[in-house]
């Protein structure tokens, strides 16, 4: 495998990892923009724009876009997060020129009025769909509660009101500001010829406008510490999120943070598994770490029979307090590392997995890491690193949101770390 990198004159970066043994190639356009870059009056515009990108250009109608992708058998889609909007396709090697042609073309969308109004309906349907999924509502509301007035609390979908009021011209203005060449990275992984890729991208994207890039309010968030119960009678299980602070994406501690999240909340053999799932107290329990520019956070969550919520909340506090007080064991660390090793290796066996990994790494850190370097970084995590992480970012310093049929919950104060599970 070999890594390559090239910057066009307008500031667009191309990176690639070639692997002649792969059967396919994955190609992604990473635009460094997302919900955190939105002002309240255009809440949801990044995600809506992601949809509009598929609705055509001066060269293609919406139907043409879908047909052209399907004609080459592409596996393609896009996603929007707080910080990135990513458009991607996996194709057989012989279709690379067509894939570059389509992706580059649609990244300069027409944003036609009639398409805008039609797609608005789809977005409103998507909001309604999540409305019926309480776990997702709980996550979204918990994030807002934790981040308070920090832009990372912005909703990715927006609201029915903000989407309803959004105009095509507001979207156009946002597009012109954020989809400038220096804000875009093209990443490829798998079986392809690097020089050919650069030539193709240069031909199609070399004329894209440059412009200033940036991001406001890249500051740390420590969480509001609030405790909120959202009473929803029609929901059946209770859905609870506890969010605590973590390191930002450029911190060397992020490897320790991923490892710790696995030890606390992986779906097999983790502390939450033994405390909640094994005894049948909750139907889901999870802990995951998300890192962002400037800050990071741990999302601990569970869902359960409403009557068990108070008890489970106390158990989760106990688990977090025990980890905070005593750290993790050597055995836990060893197990976490073997899981990570296997996941990283398997994830990198498909060009799509590799493309996403190198793309994200580049967008955030302007660095390339081989699979082995990535594994070494995880391998270097020690109990000491995890202690350092916990001292700086206490995992038991939580902001809590519960959503479901429970009307009242007592806030659990502190944790009795001496009686921690295990």
């Amino acid at each position: 495998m070999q890594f390559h990198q090239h910057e066009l004159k307008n500031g667009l970066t191309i990176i690639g990892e070639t692997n002649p043994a792969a059967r396919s190639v994955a190609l992604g356009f990473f635009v460094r923009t997302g919900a955190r870059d939105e002002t309240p009056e255009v809440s949801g515009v990044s995600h809506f724009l992601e949809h509009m990108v598929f609705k055509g250009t001066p060269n293609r109608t919406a139907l043409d876009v879908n047909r052209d992708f399907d004609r080459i058998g592409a596996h393609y889609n896009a996603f929007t997060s707080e910080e990135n909007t990513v458009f991607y396709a996996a194709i057989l090697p012989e279709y690379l020129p067509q894939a570059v042609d389509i992706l580059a073309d649609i990244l300069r969308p027409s944003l036609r009025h009639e398409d805008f109004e039609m797609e608005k309906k789809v977005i409103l349907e998507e909001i309604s769909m999540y409305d019926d999924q309480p776990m997702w509502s709980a996550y979204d509301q918990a994030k807002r509660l934790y981040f308070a007035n920090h832009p990372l609390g912005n909703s990715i979908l927006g609201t029915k009101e903000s989407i309803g009021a959004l105009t095509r011209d507001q979207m156009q203005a946002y597009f012109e500001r954020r989809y400038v060449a220096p804000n875009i990275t093209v990443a490829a992984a798998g079986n392809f010829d690097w020089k050919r890729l650069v030539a193709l991208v240069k031909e199609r994207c070399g004329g894209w406008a440059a412009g200033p890039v940036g991001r406001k309010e890249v500051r740390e968030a420590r969480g509001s510490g609030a405790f909120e119960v959202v009473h929803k009678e029609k929901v059946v299980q209770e859905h609870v999120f506890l969010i605590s602070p973590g390191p930002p994406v450029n911190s060397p501690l992020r490897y320790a943070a991923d490892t710790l999240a696995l030890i606390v909340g992986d779906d097999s053999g983790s502390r939450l598994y033994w405390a909640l799932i094994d005894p049948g107290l909750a139907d889901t329990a999870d802990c995951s770490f998300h890192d962002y520019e400037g800050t990071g956070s741990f999302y601990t969550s569970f869902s359960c029979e409403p009557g068990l919520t108070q008890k489970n909340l106390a158990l989760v506090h106990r688990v977090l307090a025990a980890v905070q007080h005593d750290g993790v064991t050597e055995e836990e660390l060893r197990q976490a590392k073997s899981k990570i090793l296997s996941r990283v290796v398997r994830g990198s066996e498909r060009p799509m997995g590799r493309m996403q990994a190198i793309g994200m790494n580049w967008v955030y850190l302007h660095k390339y890491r081989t699979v082995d370097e990535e594994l070494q970084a995880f391998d270097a995590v020690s109990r000491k690193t995890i202690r350092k992480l916990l001292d700086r970012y206490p995992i038991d310093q939580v902001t809590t949101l519960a959503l479901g049929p429970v009307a009242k919950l007592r806030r659990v104060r502190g944790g009795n770390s001496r009686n921690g599970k295990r």
Partner: protein
Amino acid sequence: MASRIYHHTLANGMTLLAEPMAHVRSAALNFLVPVGCIYDPPEYQGIASVLADLITRGAGPYDSRQLTLALDNLGLDRDESVGGVHMRFWAATLARNLPEALEIYAHILRRPHLPADEVDAVKALALQELQSLEDEPRQKVLIELRKRHYPAPLGQDRRGTREGIERLTIDIIRRHYQRLFRPRGTILAVAGNIKWGPLRDQVERLFGDWDGGEEPVVKLGEPAASGSHIPKDTTQTQIAIAFDSVPIGHPEYYAALGAVNVLSGGMSARLFTEVREKRGLCYAVWATYQTFKDRASVLCYAGTTNERAQETLDLILEELVRLKDGIAKEEVERVQAGLKSSLIMQEESTSARAGTLASDWYYLGRVRTFDEIQAAIDGLTPRKIVAHLRRHGPRRFTLVTLGPEPLRPSRRFAADTPVVVES
């Protein structure tokens, strides 16, 4: 392109399949044991799911905690799940850990403790899972669809019923295990960076002297007859539709697959284009193919806000019926491109390969080669697909909706086509 596929049947009837993949570092294993939920006794619906949970709570020399730790130490991502016909044990990790993982799985399949003191916890979990379905309307409507479309117990859901789970005792669960867990009909498929000889020898050593178990008889009954609407106070109405197709192995299987992909193969396929792209009626709309050995169906789904649900339903039914009226060459070419690239990309995933090896063996008694599938895809034409639809196309629909109000099935076209909507 095609790699070599190995096969070995043990004297006791268990099947081993393997596909060495030299270009990867991982390996995946996939056990299919013929203890799916259609074999749940009617009074104990949910027993297979409870067993699938209990079976990893201690086996051979390991107690529950030690077993989990042993599997975790090998870096396994794993899943024990219950389907209609099979209980499935899937795991993937670095290839070098595979032999050790197999040793542990032999304990799980053959020497589980099924500890009495864990039964309450496992039952509580099963009941919570059943209840959590109420917060997942899409899953719920699809489960209700299958119950109403297939003759019982084929459409049964793995989660079972509250009464069925509550009735379970450790003795009942152990008897179910002893009666049904057996080598005959069990398939183990392995794909990844492995060597065939040592694998075959190890599997012979671990499973060669496994015996016992009986082949259960399943008597097919009627589909669940209860009403086609599930009232629920939701923002969106969930729409689910099923119609019969032909099973894998049928001479028209690829034509059936082609038809489903014309409907829902990519974003330019008909359902997505007509329902979402042209009218903005929903975010999610799709159709998928589901097969048993002797029968198959196409299942369609859409979720849409209540006031637009009737229009969405009418439109989808219209698209389903219209399919047999003609398909463009270009549509088939796109389907072919999509199927071919999936076929090739599957070669990059050890999990996908282990899954396909086992399911091919179960359905067909052999593993299809790459060239065979490619030739079948190349052979698709609009004429073949339309001819298939005229013979086996959608005629009778099963419809289930979930939301605040029921919908009227199909009034727009019912007059001039022989289509029947069951409700």
